[in-house]
């Protein structure tokens, strides 16, 4: 019962946000939040450009999405994998432990940090 509720809520939230990000262009509309880190420091954060990238992705524009935030192309499948592991955490603890292995989390962390530095050096 609780499980079904969560699934319904997540799908509803995805639909609402999907619609908003499809209908409006974050780079043209002032309504979308600016990155606080960028505003404060002048440097891009690892997530900068993800709103524009999602808008582009929803319009099928993969190339533009990649230009806005390339990390999203790794992060989104990774999120999917983690959601899957999370949904089976108690039923399949071994699989959960494998997908949440320290090595994998280190890998993700390293990727985020390297991406953070590189994009500010090369202006990605």
């Amino acid at each position: 019962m609780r499980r079904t509720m969560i699934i319904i809520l997540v799908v509803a939230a995805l639909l609402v946000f999907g619609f908003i990000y499809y209908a409006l262009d974050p780079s043209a509309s002032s309504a979308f939040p600016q990155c606080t880190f960028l505003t404060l420091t002048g440097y891009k954060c690892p997530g900068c450009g993800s709103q524009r990238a999602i808008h582009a992705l929803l319009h099928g524009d993969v190339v533009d999405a990649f230009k806005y935030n390339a990390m999203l192309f790794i992060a989104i499948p990774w999120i999917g994998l983690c959601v899957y592991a999370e949904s089976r955490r108690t039923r399949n603890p071994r699989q959960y432990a494998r997908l949440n292995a320290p090595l994998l989390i280190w890998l993700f962390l390293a990727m985020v940090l390297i991406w953070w530095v590189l994009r500010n050096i090369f202006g990605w």
Partner: protein
Amino acid sequence: MHYWINHNGVQSGPVDLDGIKELHLTSAAYVWHEGLPDWVKITQLPELQGTYEVVGEPIVAASKPQGGAVTGQPYQQQPSMPQQQYANDLEPAQTEPCPPTNLVWAIISTVLCCLPVGIVAIIYALKVTNKYREGDIEGAKRASETGAWWCIASIVLGIIFCQPMLSMLPELMGSGM
């Protein structure tokens, strides 16, 4: 209901009630299911009565296959004993499910909330699995909770900065989509 079984040091599961019958267990087996704080003897779960063969004092302590968390002497067993055995166990991953790492939320807040707070949440996710691997279930649970608070913090901060989004609702209506 799914059960994890430890029979003479050999672990299996998760299995359901019908699956337990097929395992041909004896009363020396240990059982764990979600909600139980620790392994219990199969004889202590009334719903499993009749699924196992009652035997006398087991002679199993000598040969303990790898990964076995529970060994002999079940009759003089003190409540704290299995816990100590976990600490020495190489793979506690097989005894109790890992506490949530909140990795999903950590990644989402790193990528979408524009806030480096998410990175702290990732580090806590790492802490959860590391402690869990070391057999420190309590420590893993604590790290899991702290990590969850970091996720909540970054999402709340994200919502505060997303406030201008509410103002675009009229724009949405006006666009006629």
